[in-house]
């Protein structure tokens, strides 16, 4: 019935004809124009586009941090414009993990406190929140930095703490703005594996990146240009479809799957 690929669940995030305009008249900036986008449970969608094309705006609108000037955003079944400020903040805290482009760690809190803070705000007991925080920190390989403050960490380490914060607890939607920007290639790949397995385990993800290598971990990539979605790699195709054409029995047929497989991380 649905055109979704294998293993994809119900729609978690839905943007319908979303526009976001800053200012008006001659000075109006159309940061987003008529964007339609669905993210399903189990699906990771990458967003690519030049600087200023509206990627961060798209993420902010999707996570309820910014309000579209036109169109609707539906998150986990709730239309955001129908919620009041408090309701939106609660939905955001419960359901959305956000990795900001500039990390946005609280300087006066340790890594573990930064990660557990949103959970505590949401009513999780302190001890429990700390356990979750330590688990999330170790998932991204910085468990040993739990008690350090942001200014005692390298950029890449701070970035991983920010990712841990977005992953702590049962987040349904992870929104990540350049989460690999400050990471070397191997660490960046490890972070993508964590994000991928979190999504495969039943979350949805929207990932902004300039690097095609990281976008390739997503099920599909949409391309933004001047606030408009200009192209998409489309739904998940048969794995290795391109490669199979590369040679009769070339490219290690033993490694190539014979058809779509549900990967489980």
């Amino acid at each position, binding site marked *: 019935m649905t055109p979704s690929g294998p293993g994809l669940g119900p729609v978690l995030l839905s943007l319908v004809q979303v526009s976001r305009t800053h200012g008006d008249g001659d000075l109006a900036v159309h940061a987003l124009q008529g964007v339609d986008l669905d993210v399903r449970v189990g699906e990771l969608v990458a967003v690519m586009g*030049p600087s200023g094309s509206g990627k961060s705006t798209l993420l902010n609108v999707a996570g309820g941090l910014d309000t579209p000037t036109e169109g609707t955003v539906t998150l986990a079944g709730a239309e955001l414009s129908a919620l009041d400020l408090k309701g939106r903040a609660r939905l955001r805290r419960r359901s959305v993990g956000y990795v900001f482009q500039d990390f946005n760690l609280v300087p006066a809190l340790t890594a573990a406190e930064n990660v557990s803070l949103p959970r505590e705000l949401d009513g999780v007991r302190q001890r429990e929140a700390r356990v979750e925080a330590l688990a999330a920190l170790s998932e991204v390989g910085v468990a040993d930095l739990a008690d350090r403050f942001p200014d005692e960490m390298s950029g890449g380490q701070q970035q991983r703490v920010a990712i841990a914060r977005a992953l702590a607890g049962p987040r349904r939607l992870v929104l990540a703005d350049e989460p690999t920007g400050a990471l070397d290639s191997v660490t960046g790949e490890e972070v993508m*594996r964590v994000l*991928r397995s979190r999504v495969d385990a039943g979350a949805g993800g929207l990932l902004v990146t300039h*690097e*095609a*290598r990281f*976008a*390739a*971990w*997503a*099920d*599909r*990539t949409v*391309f933004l240009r001047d606030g408009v979605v*200009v*192209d*998409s*790699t*489309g739904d*998940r*195709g048969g*794995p*290795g*479809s*391109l*490669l199979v054409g590369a*040679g009769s*029995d*070339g*490219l*290690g*047929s*033993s*490694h*190539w*799957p014979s058809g779509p*497989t549900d*990967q489980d*991380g």
Partner: protein
Amino acid sequence: MSVRHGLLALLAEGPMHGYQLRQEFERRTGGTWPLNIGQVYTTVHRLVRDGLAEPVPQGEIGSAEEPGAPDGEGSGERFRLTEAGRAEATAWWARPVERGAPARDELAIKLALAVTAPGVDVPAVVQAQRTETLRALQDYTRLKARAAAEDLAWLLVLDNLVFVAEAEVRWLDHVEARVARAAATNAARGPRPAPGQGSTTQVSPGPPAVGVGPVGRDLR
């Protein structure tokens, strides 16, 4: 490239039959460069001709046939490196691979023509290619996601495909930005100079981007 050096490196690990060389080569490179057995024997015989390898004399100690070797193929002949061969194998690891002349890359040629041909929608050409290359990247990445962490050789081969594809995407991003900037500059400057009159504006530092420089420059 060097099937020749690949086989030298394998023989440095010990004497092998032709079919073993073929198997090992494919296994160790994740099957990315399939060899046929004829190619293997041709290459091995050139190594012998050049004094880098030699057949292991029949019945020599330590050359006992292992079970499972197919009869008839290469009639059981095994090869080993000579001293010179061993030296060449060692030297190969130490020597960087020559980059050589740029390959005649269809994509570079296509875009070089696209930016100069009238009426071609260059951004559309770039976008179509970017989407296609990203699909390939997704395919490689799915294979990486499934690969076992211990299968280091296979992972490295996939990484190579990933980085090459990514470089292509970055180059496409760059082409797009450069074309957009050139269009803006031309619009601001009015009519463009006739071809061949060598405008000296916008000489960028660094090496010329392959494929977007003036057509006709010989890179070889």
